[in-house]
């Protein structure tokens, strides 16, 4: 679509950088980081420690436009849910309604901006851009989405022009409020403007005032009024066919022609325009102000049954006639012309170049794609035009500190590459609070992006661990089902215990619940704590059983075996334990298991035996004594 560069690249000066320095740069997702290097063309160089951030798209940081992005996101998501299987007959009204929704959002934004622009002039540019966007969208709605046939087409185009030429009403109000409207200097401008827009009823009401002022010319004004009132307008819902309307219209047109030929309006030539002659119309260039107004008016008064396929011929000739030989068509003119030529791709291409934000082309293309109006020729890089534009737009959103959440839904609706784009970008969102991390996680989980889930949870867990928030760290590892991390946390606890002799964060360890099963180490931790509790409550036989199972289940870490053996000591020395028969058996079982345990951990036993530390001596004595039992 964009192999050659159509315009010269814009040059941006970096004011703070000194002359002659070589600049280095690095691309970011939506911006460039530029820095001064050591190299200079000539002379000595001074180092500068600044990095400049060059941002292209200022629009997404405008508070007014944010409303546009959010509201249109809502409409976009709604549009995607329209069911594919409905017959297109039912869908067209829906698409038209959605198009109107988009446009009303643009208008609301523009109106708000206009109020602000009165105070701050830098928004004046944005207002005119939004005006242009709405104009283009409206035309696309009329021509492509609503796809009005001949007859209705002109009526829609009339509406379109009227909507975008609101200054007539302002002028009219001014004139009407004056003392003698018919003598107001703008009076005829208003009347002619009304006629140019096909608002004949209002024109006639204005003319009445003129008529009362000049009773002598009453007959002429009566004739004018009659002609205007008899002008046929096509009624799409009526019983009249287009051919019948055409006949009637030509009849009226002939009558008007006759009246002009026999000089009925010699004294007042303002209304000659209703004959539809181009040169006559062009005399009112200032009132028309644009070539497309000229186009619609010309069609109104010369060819109201224009067919969509004929439009481009009239559009081209009107534009040529209207614009001076010297003036170059502006981008807007080219876009509208492309629309009249029903060249959707050209419209999109021109808009992409002219506008500095992908918002408009992305949403319009998406809507047109839903209307099945885009040929699905694939671009070089595999995805189609709609997806390309949506990806560009959403990627732009993702660079915004806040609007990234909207981008997710756009990526979701790009079947080819959306998921990949999302996966790559979502990991770069800064996670300052747990709440934000939870939201990002939820997005990843809903889309089964397990790698990103694990990565985010690990980041949060490490941060928690660094701040000694062991409970938080565990909570994150549970969410990611990260057994390795759970093991890490348990090791921290066990280390703490070894150094301090007590457990920290008992509220956590005592309440692990099923999370205990996440990792062996964690299970050991929970059970070991339970052992301590039982011992503290003097429930020795249960404590012994538990210690037994801990040893035999082989989930105890090596570093802890010594501690476990040391814990076994008091149990062996408990004289009270052996009062009841089954307690005796327990004691025996403890001892036999201890033996087995020691046999399997010969190295530990040897170390024990060899060392002269008090626990080992006591242990040996206890073992020796127990043999006698």
């Amino acid at each position, binding site marked *: 679509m964009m192999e050659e560069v159509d315009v010269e690249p814009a040059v941006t000066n970096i004011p703070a950088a000194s002359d002659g320095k070589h600049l280095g740069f690095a691309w970011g997702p939506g911006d460039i980081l530029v820095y001064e290097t050591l190299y200079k063309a000539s002379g000595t160089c001074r180092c500068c420690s600044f990095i400049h951030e060059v941002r292209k798209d200022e629009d997404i940081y405008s*508070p*007014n436009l*944010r*409303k546009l992005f*959010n*509201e249109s*996101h*809502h409409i976009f*998501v*709604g549009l995607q*849910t329209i069911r594919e299987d409905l017959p297109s007959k039912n869908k067209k009204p829906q698409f038209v309604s959605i198009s109107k929704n988009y446009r009303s959002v643009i208008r609301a934004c523009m109106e708000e901006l206009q109020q602000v622009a009165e105070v701050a002039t830098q928004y004046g540019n944005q207002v005119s851009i939004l005006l242009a966007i709405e104009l283009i969208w409206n035309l696309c709605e009329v021509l492509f989405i609503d796809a009005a046939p001949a007859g209705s087409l002109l009526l829609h185009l009339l509406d379109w022009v009227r909507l975008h030429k609101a200054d007539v009403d302002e002028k009219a109000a001014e004139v009407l409020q004056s003392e003698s409207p018919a003598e107001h200097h703008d009076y005829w401008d208003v009347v002619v403007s009304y006629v140019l827009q096909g608002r004949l009823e209002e024109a006639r009401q204005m003319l009445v005032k003129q008529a009362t002022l000049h009773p002598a010319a009453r007959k002429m004004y009566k004739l004018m009024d009659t002609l205007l009132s008899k002008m046929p307008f096509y009624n799409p819902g009526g019983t009249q066919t287009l051919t019948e309307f055409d006949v009637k219209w030509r009849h009226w047109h002939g009558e008007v022609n006759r009246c002009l030929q026999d000089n009925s309006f010699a004294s007042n030539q303002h209304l000659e325009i209703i004959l539809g002659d181009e040169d006559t119309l062009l005399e009112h260039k200032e009132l028309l102000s644009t070539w497309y107004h000229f186009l619609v008016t010309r069609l109104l008064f010369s060819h109201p049954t224009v067919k969509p396929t004929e439009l481009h011929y009239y559009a081209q000739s009107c534009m040529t006639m209207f614009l001076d030989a010297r003036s170059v068509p502006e981008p807007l003119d080219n876009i509208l012309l492309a629309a009249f030529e029903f060249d959707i791709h050209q419209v999109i291409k021109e808009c992409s170049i002219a506008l500095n934000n992908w918002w408009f082309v992305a949403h319009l293309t998406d809507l047109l794609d839903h209307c099945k109006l885009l040929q699905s020729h694939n671009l070089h890089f595999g995805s189609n035009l709609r997806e390309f534009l949506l990806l560009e737009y959403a990627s732009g959103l993702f660079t915004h*500190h*806040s609007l990234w*959440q*909207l981008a997710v839904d756009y990526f979701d609706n790009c079947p080819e590459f959306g998921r990949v784009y999302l996966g790559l970008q979502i990991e770069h969102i800064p996670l*300052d*609070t*747990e*709440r*934000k991390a*939870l*939201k990002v996680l*939820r997005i990843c989980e*809903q889309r089964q992006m397990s790698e990103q889930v694990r990565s985010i949870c690990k980041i949060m867990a490490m941060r928690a661990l660094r*701040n*000694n*928030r*062991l*409970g*938080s760290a*565990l*909570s994150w590892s*549970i969410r990611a089902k990260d057994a390795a991390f759970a093991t890490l946390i348990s090791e921290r606890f066990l280390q703490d215990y070894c150094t301090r002799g007590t457990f*920290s*964060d008992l*509220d*956590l360890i005592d*309440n*692990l*619940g*099923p*999370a205990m099963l996440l990792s062996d180490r964690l299970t050991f931790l929970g059970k070991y704590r339970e052992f301590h509790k039982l011992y503290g409550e003097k429930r020795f036989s249960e404590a012994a059983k538990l210690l037994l199972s801990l040893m035999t289940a082989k989930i105890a870490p090596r570093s802890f075996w010594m501690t476990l053996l040391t814990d076994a000591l008091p149990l062996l020395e408990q004289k009270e334990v052996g009062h009841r028969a089954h307690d005796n058996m327990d004691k025996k079982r403890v001892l036999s298991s201890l033996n087995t345990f020691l046999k399997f951990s010969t190295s530990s036993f040897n170390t024990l035996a060899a060392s002269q530390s008090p626990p080992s001596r006591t242990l040996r004595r206890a073992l020796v004594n127990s043999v006698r039992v």
Partner: protein
Amino acid sequence: IMENINAKYVSQKISKTRWRLVSHSSLQQPDIFATGSWDNEVNKISFWSIGNHGGSDTDDGFEGDPQLLCEYKHDGDVLDLQFLDQDRIVTTSSTGAVTIFRHHQNSQTISVSHRWPRAHRYPCDNAPCTGVVCSSPEIVTVGEDGKIIVFRADQEGVIRVIENADSSTIHAVTYLRTTEILTVNSIGQLKLWDFRQQSDAPSQILSLSGDRVPLHCVDRHPNQQHIVATGGQDGMLCVWDVRQGSTPFSLMEAHSAEMWEVHFHPTNPDHLFTCSEDGSLLHWETSTHSDMPSFLQGGRNNSMISRSAMAPAGGNQSLISAWLSGDSSKGRLETTHMLPSQTLSVNSLDVLGQCLVCGTDGEAIFVNRQVPV
């Protein structure tokens, strides 16, 4: 119900929204609410008016958008916000700061009344302060650092700090009684704290018997102080009786993602409201007196079947609230979606009288002035 609600787009993601208190004696509907934003380069607190100046509403109930009265820059995300009194709000920040702002009604300006800049912190990092509750002049805050801090609005320093209240993040706090508070944390525990006790240990710990699902919000029944509702990561609504046992009385599937806030209606506690990351705001109503639900005005109704975690242990049936039974045979539990579908996460809601306000990640505020309660 759906016709009465409209979105106002405000160019900031709303993290919290609260009605300004109205005196109980007057029959006024609330007219001013405050919002806090998050995830912006420059976050703000704002005061809005919906123009209910004591008079009667029109039939239509929708008299136009909320109007911005004034706003003020806020350092960090606004993680929680409460009205301290008619003119002052307390906010907690992602920087760990706790701030009191004063709204000057005459000039429609805001000023900082008091600030505790790093109330919650780690040794070498900021700790977001996640929740606040206040009963003027006392203010209690909780944070990711697992601390509970008690302030007084008129005093410089802190009154009391419980340093290691929790080994995980405390997400929310609320009053149980004047001297007792409840906190919920990210390992699924509901803890009771009694400030009359000198020790720094909770007086009670309650949790679900199953997985340790993080809890994000908690609210106490306005009249029956032993009944507490919580919501968490899995979107389940749990109703607890803190006198009986250590597990919740009933569990109801409410949302398909995190539940951010739960509120009993302050004057009609048969009504409960929850909002969630899944973009929905549910209105729960229980009616024990008759089989017919007391309202139905359209909108989407989902009768949610609840399952009781355990049967009430004898006792006076008539005193046990309909909330605890949650059983469709004893009384009906109706839920209604209050927002149009496909909104982004609803982060916060508040309800007072017949007015409900909520804020979303779609940068929109919704106000409904005719909540059927």
